[in-house]
């Protein structure tokens, strides 16, 4: 089976899991990696010389920033029968997508080409990657859309809460085993799609939202969930503690926010 792997704008963490984890046996049997710039071949001719749909599958990590990256991805779409977008950057823009806060940023792969298989995560949990590769082999489309929020998988104790001052991560709040939100630490669990097994909250770190939005406009929904829980008398304190609203509410999916398109439209009108 011929496959290609490509890494656009990302940290390379998604590539690493291909080495570290036990991938499905049937996937590794009879596997021929034609193109993988980091490890083997990086020449574009290799891809261009292939017949159309000559690749069984291509796995793409990272977001698209340059014209060159876009061309590569379009070429891969043309040559590969099935395309898998791996990691938050490829699916939602991920951390590099935060570049949009102050100007032009990268686009997710899914906005440039259509992908059959989605592997969310930053980086994806081994289990998620394995399931996605198995789906790829079974010729199924997979996006994990049937999952509920991370909170459903979270081992921490839930209880009703009101928020006063926001707290930084660390100390007694982490050790308590209580829901982070109830302790005044921002956690994206309620608006993030599950599937990771809530590993971060389980290990004592609040969810950042790397498995992607549960519904559209997830950033606004997290804002709503938090702001609605604020004690009115301490609203100013809360607002002061919210130093980075964009990074807090849109950490992994800013590149997909409609608010950006709004700004782009305004900028275009300004220049026109």
């Amino acid at each position, binding site marked *: 089976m011929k496959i290609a792997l490509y890494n656009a704008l990302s940290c390379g963490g998604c590539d690493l899991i291909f080495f570290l984890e036990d991938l499905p046996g049937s996937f590794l049997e009879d596997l021929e990696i034609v193109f993988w710039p980091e490890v083997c071949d990086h020449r574009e001719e290799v891809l261009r010389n292939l017949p159309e749909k000559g690749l069984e599958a291509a796995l793409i990590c990272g977001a698209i920033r340059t014209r060159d990256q876009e061309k590569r991805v379009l070429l891969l779409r043309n040559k590969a029968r099935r395309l898998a977008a791996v990691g938050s950057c490829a699916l939602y823009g991920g951390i590099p997508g935060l570049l949009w806060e102050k100007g032009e940023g990268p686009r997710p792969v899914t906005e440039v080409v259509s992908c059959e298989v989605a592997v969310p995560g930053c980086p994806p949990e081994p289990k998620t990657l394995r399931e996605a590769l198995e789906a790829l082999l079974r010729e199924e489309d997979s996006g994990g859309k049937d999952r509920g929020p991370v909170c459903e998988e979270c081992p921490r104790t839930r209880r009703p809460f009101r928020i006063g001052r926001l707290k930084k991560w660390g100390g007694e709040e982490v050790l308590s085993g209580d829901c982070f939100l109830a302790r005044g630490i921002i956690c994206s669990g309620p608006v993030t799609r599950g599937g990771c097994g809530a590993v971060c909250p389980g290990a004592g770190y609040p969810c950042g939202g790397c498995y992607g939005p549960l519904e559209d406009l997830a950033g606004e929904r997290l804002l709503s969930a938090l702001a609605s829980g604020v004690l*009115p008398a301490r609203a100013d304190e809360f607002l002061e503690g919210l130093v980075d609203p964009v990074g807090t509410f849109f950490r992994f999916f800013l590149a997909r926010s409609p608010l*950006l398109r709004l700004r782009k439209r305004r900028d275009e009108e300004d220049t026109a």
Partner: protein
Amino acid sequence: MKPVLIGFLCEWCAARALENMAHKRLKLPDGFLPLRVRCSGAVEPALLTEALRRGALGVLVGGCPRGHCHYREGNTRAEIRLKVYRKLLAALGLSPDRVRGVWVGSGEGERLHREIWQFWKELTGEDRPL
């Protein structure tokens, strides 16, 4: 495209203030589209983004005066949410003044009328385009 200002008005105060204004035959801007909601606290930020995304120039959220919410603290929550949402807009380089809260009693039709026109002028005006 014709400029549009969406108004989410709570049915207990702001929407009644609008009726009160209608009795006085006061004229509203052509692009003002009022929507009656159960409570200003029911207007979630995702709705604001949706309205702006679909081309609204501004969004006005009208609720009961402070401390007079029919559901005790709906307007308080709406106000906090608006504050946080405006902070988000500012951080993204958008004008936070495109989203605004107005807290009026059911008899304050004239004040609501004033507020709407003021907002409308700021949105469409030559000197202060938002």
